[in-house]
């Protein structure tokens, strides 16, 4: 049995989701992959827990219900944990910052420099410093994996790299933000105005109090940059994306589109000519890209396999943790 020691930096919904799936899947992973994943350290704004023989996931999850209180162990900082506690993989799940990439960027750099593999769902560092991070990982002979950063549970990056290996990818088009898709779907189906549906999405916890990152296309743009770099080998940053959001879409416009056999979706598109665009587009009702609710979808156009479309849940702690778990396992198989 191989033991893989990991740290989880950022114990929010996604970080806790990772602890939860490791708890749930312990026996499966041991049986199928001959591997035991031990969480030896977690860090969040509130504090740090370290145990080199492995923390108990059920105990850690009590931090989320308030049954257990955060504390700072051994006077260590997060960076001390990453650098000095012996482990194999750092899982980085702190909130995304698209302006500075911090604190995730420093966490990732520190982990790679300490010779640890990195698995992350954090989009900011990848959208800002992709080539720097990839080069650093290569130099250190470590792996940097980030499937969870684009489309949550939906496999795109590993799909292209493994299953579609040998294909030339011509373009990727997709819905990469569940909040926008929810808003546009509700507006179209119920004929409701934008403001009303946005408020509803906020009440359901699908949109943040400040929804600008979602509805103005920023979140989609950042994911597109990661795809451009990871799939097309570009060296793009967030500033290279031509961007328009959904705030101008009216229910009249949706109605008019519907009468002509179309829906309106916020589509991110990257192609081999180097164009990165996020904008509302007319999607024929029967096109596979027409998925409703909070679902994400991507159509990958390839030269050999033709069009491949993947649909899945783009958000949610367990869904993101599923992608993170798959990344961890893939490092060792």
């Amino acid at each position, binding site marked *: 049995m191989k033991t893989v020691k990991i740290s989880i930096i950022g114990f929010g919904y996604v970080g806790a989701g990772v602890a939860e799936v490791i708890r749930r899947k312990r026996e499966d992973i041991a049986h199928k992959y001959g591997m035991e994943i031990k969480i030896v350290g977690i860090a969040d704004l509130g504090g740090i827990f370290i145990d080199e023989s492995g923390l108990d996931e059920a105990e850690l999850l009590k931090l989320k219900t308030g049954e257990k209180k955060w504390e700072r162990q051994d006077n260590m900082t997060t960076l001390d944990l990453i650098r000095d506690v012996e482990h194999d993989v750092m899982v980085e799940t702190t909130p995304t910052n698209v302006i500075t990439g911090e604190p995730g960027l420093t966490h990732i750099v520190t982990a790679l420099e300490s010779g640890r593999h990195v698995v992350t769902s954090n989009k900011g560092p990848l959208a800002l410093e992709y080539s720097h991070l990839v080069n650093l990982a290569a130099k250190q002979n470590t792996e940097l994996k980030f499937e969870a950063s684009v489309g949550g549970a939906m496999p795109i990056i590993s799909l292209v790299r493994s299953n579609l290996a040998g294909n030339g990818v011509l373009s990727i088009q997709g819905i990469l933000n569940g909040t926008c898709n929810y808003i546009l779907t509700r507006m179209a189906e119920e004929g409701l105005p934008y403001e009303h549906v946005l408020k509803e999405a906020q009440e359901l916890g699908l949109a943040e109090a400040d929804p600008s990152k979602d509805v103005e296309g920023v979140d989609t743009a950042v994911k597109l940059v990661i795809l451009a770099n990871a799939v097309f080998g570009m060296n793009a940053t967030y500033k290279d994306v031509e961007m328009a959001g959904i705030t*101008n879409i*009216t229910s*009249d*416009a949706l109605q*008019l589109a519907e*009468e*002509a056999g179309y829906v309106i979706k916020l589509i991110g598109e990257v192609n081999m000519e180097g164009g990165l665009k996020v904008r509302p587009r*007319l999607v024929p009702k029967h096109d596979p890209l027409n998925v409703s609710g909070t679902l994400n979808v991507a159509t990958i156009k390839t030269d050999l396999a033709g069009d491949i479309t993947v649909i899945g849940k783009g958000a949610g702690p367990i869904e993101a943790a599923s992608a993170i778990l798959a990344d961890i396992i893939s490092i060792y198989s």
Partner: protein
Amino acid sequence: MKISMDIELKDIPGQLVLALEPVSGLGGNILSVLHQRDKKTPAGRIPVELVIEIEEKRLERLVEQLEERGVSVVRTGEVSLRESMVVLLIGHIVHSDLGETIDSIDRTGFAEIVGLSLSMPGVDKESSALVTLSALGTKELDEALKILKRTASKKNITIIPPI
């Protein structure tokens, strides 16, 4: 009548002017010239696609004059708009002179607005329009969409193209 014409030029300077002169000489109007310098025929000539407006009875004279000048005319035919797409516009479309927007596309000669449905919820509210564009081919259709985008951005209209 509108005619599209494929011609081939020798790869030496001055050939394009030589080919276009007879069109105006016969009272015709040049609507578009697609000069594909990077493409060559196996015989080393350069293909050019013209769209012109000319009286039907003068077309034969034009072909003769071109051939006399060493320009080979590969094909002539009435313009047919083969490619279409729908585009949705949102904004103060009617106030911003919709006619001018339509004209700017129709003037190209290679594309037209062939369908339009409007939804106007109220005088001071934003309206929506579903526009059907048709053009000679995909390249011309792209060009027409670019014109529409330019006009729309000047007039603060949101444009939603198809995937």
